[in-house]
């Protein structure tokens, strides 16, 4: 439960006074709070734990760690559906 999952930041934006981003993990994209790694930019790889980026990593490390988590069956939290606020359409997620 304490493992963080690496992903690629595809978008950064401010929402409700918080620095947020969309982060892509394999085939899934989730919203993540970037307040703890404020220097993050689009294209960076970050380690995300329960919706919060906690550190930046390089691309190779991100790939290796993702693969290791996949093998350990430690990616199931990404299956939990995203909570969409009423009146919005999953900020940044709608095409």
């Amino acid at each position, binding site marked *: 439960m304490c493992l963080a999952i690496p992903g690629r930041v595809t978008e950064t934006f401010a929402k409700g006074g918080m620095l947020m981003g969309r982060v892509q993990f394999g085939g899934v994209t989730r919203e993540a709070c970037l307040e*703890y790694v404020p220097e993050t930019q689009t294209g960076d790889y970050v380690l995300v734990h329960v919706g919060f980026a906690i550190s930046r990593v390089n691309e190779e490390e991100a790939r290796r760690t993702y693969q290791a988590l996949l093998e350990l069956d*430690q990616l199931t939290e990404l299956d939990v559906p995203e909570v969409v*606020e009423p009146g919005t359409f999953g900020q940044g997620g709608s095409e």
Partner: protein
Amino acid sequence: MKYLDEYRDGKIASRIVDEIRSIQTKPWVIMEVCGGQTHSIVKNGVDYLLPRGIELVHGPGCPVCVTPLEMIDKAHAIARRPDVIFCSFGDMLRVPGSEGDLFTIKSEGGDIRVVYSPLDCLKIARANPDKQVVFFAVGFETTAPANAMLVSRAKQDGVRNVSILVSHVLVPPSIAAILQSPQNRVQGFLGPGHVCAIMGYREYEPMSARFKVPIVITGFEPLDILQGTLMVVRQLEAGRAEVENEYSRILDREGNRPAQKLVASVFEIADRKWRGVGSIPKSGYKLRWEYRDYDAEKIFSVKEIDTREPEICISGRILRGIKKPHDCPAFGTVCTPQHPLGATMVSAEGACAAYYAYGRHLESKREELEAMASLGGAA
């Protein structure tokens, strides 16, 4: 179990194992602290690769496992209320309390929701102004910044119908408690990588010096664990006791400062009870007074519930590295992940559950049978 050549980096793995073998002069007991590491060790058979005499024991680093039964029962009492939407990470749903688990409560009509992030609770609270949204805030240092942000944002935005049930524990006090026990066998530690990504590893330094024990902050991949073990053995053999960082590609000594700052503004250190282990002084977080309106224990004033682990369960000794799952007569017989009797069986990251998931309950039987057969042969 896996053999060396099955590892993606089999050559590097065997080089590390050879080096451990070449420098080792006596047996050593080393504990990995994080449940993610335990899972990786058992799944990949890393402990079987190590030379005889290097024993890995499995520490208390699974937050689901160490959440006390009383707290589970409190969560269930709150979750049963009709005015409550109870939110939790998925791994807490199957943990049995005195009467059933969160799934049972859901099937009886309780509004239980699995969330990906604590921030989801803020969205749910806004969408349901006539309900109280309660989040089960379980976890180690890695998860605390997320829970701190939930509470801090709720207060800032004036969202009043959200609160958290805090069951936060900290790694360094649990290591100190293990080292202080008169029965302690652990001589070196693999420190938890992703916990230290938040906290850094400064706070491990006085402990390593005081107890003269090497602590190597380590990742969770098999090669990390082998490398971390090598670094601990090198220190033990040289009579050194320092904090070293095997996982420098992820973290540094200082950790994540913005996260530490917010955590310190929302939480303060408190005594906490650990399932299987008992109370450890200053071993967790509670909400600061300024955030009392977000404390589910205060809002719902749930009464203390007295609970007890079954006598047969030795999970407390397993969590401290004194025993292994095979030493428990209930392991894999009356105690299984479907019917867990104790702390280390309730989550996939607990030692008993990991041993069971990878068939080690069958191994023990096989060894017993072989031993019996050889005795029979000798008679």
